[in-house]
């Protein structure tokens, strides 16, 4: 076995894992917050993420067509598209809740879950229809920025691209902002109260419906930001992009303990790192027999193992069983 190669790629693998992990963490927040207040797996969240990515690419392509792309500072543009992606995805998540989940509140658990699957499928084809009418194509490519593709050299063999650093920094900023919002503000206290006990929270004067909408807004906005960052990092996006990252992010949320916000971040990072290591080292360690294609299987196996041996996740508390 080639130990030197193994060591040489190590920092790059860690960086890839961090990028992937922060992406998963951002998406996982949407799942975990909604699960916290409604005990619902918001299946449509992967499509909220995908829509964020499309908002980013649409703005960039429009700016490219008008020539504005070269006149503005790329970092200003990046912040602008992230904010727009957050806004559109957040509002979309609120609309989805209002139309497809709110009428079903109090129904048996499987009912809103199936409705969520319906929303997910609906949004995929809606975006596909819209994009193919508008651009005659639904596999879109992010315009590339020279400023983001340059590589920062840290040591002789180690260099990172600027965009992966951007992903990490932007995710960290958003995660801290969210943590502050939830733990230090009155609004955050209301969200935690609703997650804990809805009837009591409403007796204490919390407007439960408003808080649930707000949860969807925040979770959706995080998903939208992740969508834009995904596009910037991996360049291409299509209406079905959301499915696999969505499932992985849900795995991350379960890994960290679903309903638990720091847990989603930890779970995302752990899963991202594990996956990056699996992708790079599986084929090295098995002599090429099992390649990077098996990283998805690896992630799902982790999900199953965690659910069996530690169903409340790495950071989760014991949850009251509700049928």
């Amino acid at each position: 076995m080639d130990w030197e190669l193994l060591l040489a790629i190590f920092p790059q693998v860690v960086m890839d894992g961090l990028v992937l992990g922060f992406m998963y963490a951002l998406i996982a927040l949407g799942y975990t917050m909604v699960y916290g207040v409604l005990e619902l797996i918001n299946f449509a969240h992967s499509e909220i993420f995908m829509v964020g990515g499309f908002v980013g690419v649409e703005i960039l392509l429009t700016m490219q067509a008008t020539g504005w792309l070269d006149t503005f500072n790329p970092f200003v543009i990046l912040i602008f598209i992230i904010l727009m992606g957050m806004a559109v995805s957040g509002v979309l998540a609120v609309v989805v809740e209002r139309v497809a989940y709110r009428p079903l509140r109090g129904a048996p658990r499987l009912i809103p879950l199936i409705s969520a699957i319906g929303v997910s499928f609906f949004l995929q084809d809606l975006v596909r229809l819209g994009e193919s009418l508008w651009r005659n194509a639904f596999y879109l490519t992010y315009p590339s920025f020279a400023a983001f593709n340059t590589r920062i050299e840290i040591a002789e063999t180690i260099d990172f691209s600027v965009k992966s650093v951007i992903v990490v920094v932007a995710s960290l900023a958003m995660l801290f902002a969210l943590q502050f919002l939830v733990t230090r503000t009155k609004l955050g206290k209301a969200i935690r109260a609703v997650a804990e006990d809805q009837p009591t929270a409403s007796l204490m004067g919390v407007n439960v419906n408003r808080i649930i909408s707000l949860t969807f807004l925040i979770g959706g906005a995080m998903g939208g930001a992740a969508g834009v960052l995904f596009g910037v990092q991996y360049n291409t996006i299509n209406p079905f992009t959301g499915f696999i990252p969505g499932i992985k992010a849900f795995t991350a949320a379960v890994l960290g303990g679903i309903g638990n916000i720091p847990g989603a971040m930890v779970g995302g990072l752990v899963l991202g790192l594990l996956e990056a290591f699996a992708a790079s080292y599986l084929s090295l360690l098995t002599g090429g027999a099992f390649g990077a294609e098996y990283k998805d299987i690896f992630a799902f196996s982790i999900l199953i193992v965690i659910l069996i041996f530690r169903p409340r996740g790495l950071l989760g508390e014991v949850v009251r069983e509700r049928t």
Partner: protein
Amino acid sequence: MTDVPSPSGPTTGAVDVAPGLQRWRSHPVLLNVLVAAALFGSAILVWVVPRSIIAFMAFQASLLVIYLLPLDVRTKLAWAAVALGVLMPMLGTHNGYYMEVAIQVGIFVALALGLNIVVGLAGLLDLGYVAFYAVGAYLWAIFGSPQAAKFLPIEGVFPLPAPWFFAFLILGLAVGAITGILLGLPVLRLRGDYLAIVTLGFGEVVRVLANNLDKPWNITNGPKGITPISRPPLFFEPALSALGIDAPPSVLYPLLFYFMVLGIAAVVIVINRRLEGSHVGRAWEAIREDEVAAQAMGVPLVRMKLLAFAIGASFAGVMGVIFSAKQLFISPESFTFLESIGVLAMVILGGMGSIPGAIIGASAVTILNLQVLKGLSLWLNELRNSGLTVLGYNLADLPSQFEPAKYERMIFGMILILMMIYRPAGIFPARRRKLETYHRGEEPAA
């Protein structure tokens, strides 16, 4: 049958379905004439205009008429036998596409009934159901084609001779059931929505494996798929030629598959009916309603859930074997998440836990996909080619992206959302579930 004794004589099975039609019950002759008119009328229509999709839909609707009218069960079965056993094969030989539709409907009826046991009766949401179908399909595809020789060091045995197909039907059943148990053992202790996500993951794992197991040993031939897959022998051909009927294989194979699928679907329906009323079926429904209470009443949770998984999976395994033999070619593309959701949409559309519901849901969704959406797409193309101008808009400019056949996801999605909001019990709700949803308002909040 577990019918509630109805006050007015023999049970008909239609008691719940169409109460408005009950007053015609005392006119059986009239009803039979009506059925005969609908059935033969539409069949003749299809025969005369074989290319008209509307004619074929009239024929399908006449089958629904048989189900809805308040006739007694034996008469209904007799009519169904005439329609499916005699008329349908004749029409299908006349226009091969209709035979294909009928075979597909049969396959999906069996799949929907299998999933109905898991989701509808036992209340376990399985989002990776198509994985069991894939296991059955690959089982026959690998051994019924030269593929097996690529990783087994045996020469000249593969593809197995065609009669082995029938052994593989049984084998598909067993392997499907075993896969179901293997998946079920670790995950069935999970809560409902975790189970959903794990089964989804399992479905993806099976697809990824099928996609990548072309190395280090070439088992599935990867994304290229496996072909040619052997078909079952035309064992009835000598008998037919003895009777003086000589038909080419292109006619006989669809007939063989049609009757095979029809027979298996019938067996599956009977098994479902028997299970529904048995203590097993009631245990499943108890688990669905309240696991803790069911356990307290002495229902062995894990064993019952495993049984539901195994039975549901075994139906899918058998149908997978038939599917691969019918298609001659399979690849991982045929077993995507979309397929799992498609079968789920059938079960939900018809009514979770309801056997007639699953049958009608499967027929409706398959017909929607194969006939209605395709028909609309064709119609749209004709409109565009006609170059007509409507309100100053040239129809030739109509974008081809509007073709409805491309939007089955959107349609499934809308079906799922609207059904959950407006009619969560489905079109033909199970009797027990109907009672339940009727009184939902009075239930205490969970």
